[in-house]
């Protein structure tokens, strides 16, 4: 396994220049994700248009895998419904954990496939997704708790 499989150009680029970074105010939902052992920490704020995610932002700090995964995710889920996000996350999770999982149709998210050779880092890549799920599950922003994938 080569390091360049994990740290692909797309990952390094999204780590260096995260897309949709910052906060959305006002927002319809907010959730925090924190992996205390790693220190990876992020906050997602989003606005909905009915069932769909109209817009979302994330802020936080952590390793390149967690930050790039969050950035790639925000690009991939804009305009999608909660059911579509869940289906997409199932595919991303398979990509992160299962040998031979297909990346067909995943676009830039396919760059995360190298993570599966580094099992200790799966939790870094999945933190943003779990946090987004929590944000979608809680319509009341004040009720948002903290998610962890450790």
């Amino acid at each position, binding site marked *: *396994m080569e390091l360049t499989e994990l740290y692909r150009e797309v990952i390094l680029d999204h780590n260096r220049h995260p897309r949709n970074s910052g906060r959305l105010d006002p927002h319809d939902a907010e959730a925090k994700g924190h992996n205390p*052992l*790693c*220190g990876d*920490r992020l906050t997602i704020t989003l606005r909905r248009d009915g069932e769909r995610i109209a817009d979302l932002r994330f802020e936080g700090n952590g*390793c390149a895998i967690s930050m790039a995964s969050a950035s790639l995710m925000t690009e991939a889920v804009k305009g999608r419904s909660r059911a579509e996000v869940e289906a997409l996350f199932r595919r991303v999770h398979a990509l992160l954990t299962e040998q031979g999982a297909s990346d067909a149709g995943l676009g830039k998210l396919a760059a995360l496939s190298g993570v599966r050779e*580094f099992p200790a880092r799966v939790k870094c890549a999945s933190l943003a997704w779990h946090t987004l799920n929590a944000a979608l599950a809680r319509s009341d922003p004040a009720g948002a708790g903290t998610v962890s994938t450790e």
Partner: protein
Amino acid sequence: MSIVRLHASHGYDVARLREQFPILAQAVNGRHLAYLDNGASTQRPRQVIDAVTHYETHLHANVHRGVHTLSQLATDAFEGARERVRRFLNAGSTREILFTRGTTESINLVAQSWGRANLRAGDEIIVSALEHHANLVPWQMIAAATGARLRVAPIDGTGQLHFAGFQALLNERTKLVAIAHGSNALGSILPVGRVIEAAHRAGVPVLVDGAQAVAHLAVDVRALGADFYAFSGHKLYGPTGIGVLYGREALLDAMPPWMGGGDMIRTVSYESATWNELPWKFEAGTPNISGAIGLAAALDFLEELGVEKAAAHEHGLLGAATAALMRIPGVRIHGTAEDKGPVLSFTLEGVHPHDVGTILDHEGVAIRAGHHCAMPLMDLLGLPATARASFACYNTLAEVEQLAAAVRRAAEVFR
């Protein structure tokens, strides 16, 4: 010039020493394993592995119970290990040597037993800003239970205890000082002798968390004047799950037991019990017998090696590693105290410590990346985490170079 020869010429033959550590001979990710995570746990020499195997193969039975031969042999070996620890610390009596699961349990024992008996609302416990969670959370718990208050002695910019700041916290409400001998996150060796002197002048006992110190400097609890001294077996070449609490006899005598059960009692009725003598009063249940025997073998190993000689070798590695990493653009060293154990905490600009850790692992270099169980210290330093290389007696200058090359590789991947 060969590193091995360089050290051999000073009477320190690191190549031969490494032969005693079978685990070090393996490759990781196709590369020589440079095991630089010794601050988290050291590896075991053959001597320790053999002592444990011998016990498991020939001597095992429960201790302090049977009249049969094996029970007597196991008891002799276990109590022999206690005497070995007493000599290691130069304690006055084996009554002062308690076996625990490790430093964490040792400190919890003092917090729960001594703390519950002696702390009242308004009393103060002094810790330092660089404590490991193991010497912080037990005090938070007992403070919450008793109404006592935690005071935090500051550190200076190098990561050393700010001595005047510590002294300023000592007052008539202070009931205990609990302080690290060595910092696991920054490497600083604290002036515990001066801390103890100042605390004793104020009539305050001192607990020393020796987890990071015992493998690197000779500890004499009587010369130091420590009231309690805690350490773990696995940080000085012994097994995990065994540790020690040294306590001054007068203090231990006055303390109530912490855990109840077998071995810690003298007589039991349905209504009540009376306590066994020291040290067994604090050792409820069947102890970690093989762990204690392995620990005794580790202390033999360390004594035969010579802790000062090992420390001088490790100090050389620390100096070489510090110089090598400082030459890499973007590297910052955290912890620059004059008196330092072989711990090198660093960050690489633009690269998160976990990414540094993954890349180093890929290059065969095992380090720790994270908050080092010192979250408040990381907050104080404004860092989410650091990467930490920590050295032991068996590391080499070639491994220091392997570390530096791997850090350069990390910088290159993220360029």
